[in-house]
């Protein structure tokens, strides 16, 4: 059961990571395209700057869950290292639960934010006038995946204790 769930979550995180990589590539190419278009051909684009700022949200939030899975987010384990195995695991369950709750709150109110932006028809203040709920989607998606990863971490630690 756990293994099945783990595989599915890992697939999702990996899938999101791939989206983040694509966003990263788009980000890089539009920055380079813009600077060449502006400085060499003297034809600045109107879309580059805006696309770039959306892509960076995409990179940040779609990529985060996988980075959590491979433990590459910065964690400071100085104090917890001093504890015995049992207390360290209890502490880990505690901190992961806090992380899970935080991510769930961001996920839940992220959905509300999108609903609000959608109903109010909020658009970006630039010439593209992109409805803001589209880039804001990165928040609930990203934090949903983060919640799943935190949940898995808790389950795995509990399993180790038993």
């Amino acid at each position, binding site marked *: 059961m756990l293994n099945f769930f783990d595989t599915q979550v890992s697939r999702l995180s990996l899938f999101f*990571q791939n989206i*983040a*990589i694509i966003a*990263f*590539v788009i*980000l*890089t190419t539009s*920055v*380079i395209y*813009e*600077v060449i278009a*502006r*400085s060499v051909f003297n034809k600045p684009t109107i879309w580059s*700057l805006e696309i*770039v*700022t959306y892509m*960076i*949200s995409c*990179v*940040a*939030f779609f*990529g*985060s869950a996988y*980075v*959590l899975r*491979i433990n*590459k*987010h*910065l*964690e*400071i*384990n*100085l*104090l*917890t290292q001093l504890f015995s195995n049992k207390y360290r695991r209890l*502490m*880990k369950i*505690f*901190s*992961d639960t*806090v*992380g899970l709750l*935080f*991510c769930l*709150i*961001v996920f839940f*109110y*992220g959905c*509300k*934010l999108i609903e*609000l932006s959608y109903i109010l028809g909020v658009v970006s203040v630039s010439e593209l006038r992109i409805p803001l709920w589209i*880039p*804001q989607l*990165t*928040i*609930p998606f990203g934090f949903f995946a983060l919640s799943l990863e935190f949940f898995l971490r808790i389950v795995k630690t509990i399993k180790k204790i038993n």
Partner: protein
Amino acid sequence: MLLFILFISILMVIATGIPVGIGLGVVGFLFYLFFEGSSAFISLPQTIFESNNSFLLTAIPMFILMSEILRKANVTELLFETVTKWVGHLPGGLAVSTVITCAIGASITGSSVANAASMSIVAGPPMINRGYDSKFTYGLIAASGTLGILIPPSIPMLLFASITEVSIGKLFISGLIPGLILVLMLCVYVILKDGFNNKRIKLEKASFQVRYQLTKKALPALCLPIIVVGGIYAGFFTPTEAAGIGVLLAFLLGFFWYRTLKITDILDIFKESLHSTCMILLLIAGSMVLGHAITTMQISDQLVKIISDYDVSQFVFIILIMLLLFILGCILEVVSVIYIVVPILFPVVEALGIEPIWFAIIFIVNMEIALITPPLGMNLYVISGIAKRPIAEIMIGSMPFVLIFLFFLFLLILFPAISTILIS
């Protein structure tokens, strides 16, 4: 008082071992909830969304990508080899060449951790094979690696500028002279300490022909930072655009000039850069939530009032801040220190009429110390992981350098002109 509670709660939450970005977000959210009530809920995702919605911050993934491409293209090896051919036979030989390569490496990366990591792979084994003890070798690399954030480009400087709206071009350029002085001090130290040690296996003096060949080969890589940083300073590019140009040039160098990159490396380069980027961006997102709460609580205003009430002089204020930063630097890592401290203190700095660029430079130098002071010095951990040496050994090895850095910091405080000479 409020400030004290805030600091304590941040430290307590982070000490649980929660990912730091999430931890900072949790503290910020709880404080906001306590002071502003339920409006905290809906403003939470909004703050997080806006946190990364900045064109200046886009420069961060670009700079990370640039240094990752060059690392994959083995440019660090080439630089080390070239520098060694010039200075390797002199007293202090390889140690001096390590310091200088770290300085050059700093100009193609914005991160000290990345700089120290690639240098410990490239310069560590040759130094140890030539009879340097590993304490000295890795302590030296940890310390010289920190030049990464002082010599432009620098990710912490970018963060500082994005919070305070200080000109990033000026800030980058201001790091140059202090960076060079620090390089000089480190070289003098290693020459005095180790230069006349007869136990070292001496390197042969390289012929001019060899030097010329290698320098010619390394030259394009050496020009890259000049184009990137010079372009920002001259106002020709924004930092993000400059970093974009840097990425393009790095790819061109790797594929066509050095031919050390393969097309299959691209995916790995993007993947590795994505992981470092996500780590920093999540930290920024959490820090922004905290910053939002700090602004709402008007902590800075209270602080300004206290300082004007007690008539604290500029000098005393700076010394107190440096002490605070030193302590925070021991237990936290650089990005979080910047995001916790700068929003609170910068208004005070402005109110006291302190030169912001100078403040930024001494702040950054203090953060260099933070990278090599235990218990949490990121450079120590990274090198310990790569070199497979006990962390305590590297800590002891870097201790003399902490003293040098403190002396250097004191110099910068006494003579602000060192930091501001290029911009005035």
